[in-house]
């Protein structure tokens, strides 16, 4: 990939925004207090992360940009899903997904 100015901007935005979010918690707690309010916010934002992660999993599994990604990749992700469900170690999940996809491609599946 070619790395350009807009990539630096993106990286900077992510780093600065993340740091700001980290500072915001203690700052807010000093003003509005922690406790119940923090818990209900946490539930909402945890839901936000769940929704976005789920959206990322399916779009990354099924698409290459706007094109369908073929069969090998989604099937690799399905294998990963089974292993996650069976509580396999993280590294095993990642390696199994890649290996399944690689093997299916070797067999000629797109």
């Amino acid at each position, binding site marked *: 990939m070619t790395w350009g100015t807009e990539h630096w901007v*993106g990286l900077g935005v992510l780093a600065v925004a993340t740091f700001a979010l980290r500072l915001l918690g203690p700052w807010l707690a000093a003003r509005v207090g922690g406790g119940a309010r923090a818990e209900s*916010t946490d539930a909402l934002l945890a839901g*936000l992360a*769940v929704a976005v992660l789920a959206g990322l*999993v399916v779009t990354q599994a099924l698409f290459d940009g706007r094109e369908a990604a073929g069969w090998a990749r989604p099937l690799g*992700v399905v294998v990963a899903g089974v292993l996650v469900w069976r509580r396999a170690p993280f590294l095993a999940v990642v390696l199994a997904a890649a290996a399944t996809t690689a093997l299916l491609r070797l067999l000629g599946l797109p």
Partner: protein
Amino acid sequence: MVGLSFGAVAVASGAPLWLPVLLSVVVFAGASQFVFVALVTGGSSPLVAALTGTVLNARMVPLGMGVADVVPRTGWRRLLAAHLLTDESAAFTLPRRDPEERRAAFWLTGVLLFALWNLGVLVGAGLGGTVLASVDPSDLGLDAAFPAVLLALLVPALRTRADRRTAVAGAVVAVAAVPVLPVGLPAVVAALGVLAGRARRRGGDGGAP
């Protein structure tokens, strides 16, 4: 292990060697780093990738509220403590009551995790750069590694029925948005899925494990 995978997969997918390493130092938040690299190497706009990563990190706010007492009030130590705030450092701090224990737990977990995470990413990036660089990433099935990682991060968070509804709604919204939105944005609008998790909770049926 997660750091190692991140470094290796990122570099093998075509990111420059220093990118995962730099991200790990300045962002230091696993899921958002994976997402940023996956989206950028996948051709989406870096700003969209940054936005998606930021949404995932919104949880830092309530976590920071929960451990506010261990964050020094002023000075560089406050900034350092903020940067060390992660799911893990908060998780080890929150259950403790004694202020001294809380402070110790936070700093110990934070510093240790920062060191191990960055070491893992550095080694992983090195491996990715030397061992995997000469091969086509799609021959290795590495394009399946990113969604697999995100799945591994997602599933443990699905504790209640409302969580699962949220996830399904997020996935549906994202897929529906693929043909109409620029690459990368569909996952951001998946955030709307959170409405599905909450809508019926008010009706009293959600929330049961």
